[in-house]
């Protein structure tokens, strides 16, 4: 019954290209866990299985998929990295 929250989702690499933008604004139920964000992304992304090794950052720090989102949060979806 609590009000929905607005969160911002940062996406990179091929996820950014599929989404068509580096950032997606989502309105979600209060306390949505970070790990559920993927299923709210626009198609064609949400039909893809999230890749093994997907990590999450919340407001610039690593977090776990169970962390509950709050209004104004910024979530980053960190695909398996390939720097170096």
């Amino acid at each position, binding site marked *: 019954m609590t009000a929905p929250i607005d969160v911002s989702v*940062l996406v*990179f*690499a*091929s*996820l*950014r*290209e*599929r989404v068509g933008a580096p950032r997606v604004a989502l309105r979600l139920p209060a306390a949505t866990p970070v790990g559920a964000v993927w299923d709210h992304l626009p198609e064609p992304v949400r039909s*893809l299985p999230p*890749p*093994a*090794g*997907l990590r999450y*950052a919340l407001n*610039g720090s690593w977090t776990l998929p169970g962390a509950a989102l709050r209004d104004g949060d910024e979530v*980053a979806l*960190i*695909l*398996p*990295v*390939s*720097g*170096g």
Partner: protein
Amino acid sequence: MAEGPRVHARLTRGALALDDLVAGVADEAHGATVTFTGTTRREQGPPAVVRLEYEAYEPMARAEMEAIGLEAARRYGAHVAAAHRLGPVPAGEASVGVAASAAHRPAAFAACRHVIDEIKRRAPIWKQDVHADGTRAWQDGLPPVPVPGT
């Protein structure tokens, strides 16, 4: 000398200068300096890779590189400097550079190795291979993006 470890971490769109990294870890009490440079190998493929394009979650990539540098600095009594390029990097140019100095060489080797291994494992940076035939492939764990119109 006794001021504790120094850690520099940098993302840059320009060419990497190994000398700058080495200068960043100089210390009269450190007898050993080890560097690592990672370069795009041209013969990857086919099709041949003509360049890479790097993208990062920049504030976190920098923070993660600093955290990794600090781990090595504390564990090995080292100074650490690390730089990673973003944007296009032609094949044959360096995309990442690390320098680590310590009193003695086992610690300098171990610190440098820790930093490059962990940057590759943890820093939120992604590369896209750009091939001679114009095709591109992100290395990010997702299946290739379908080419529009096919």
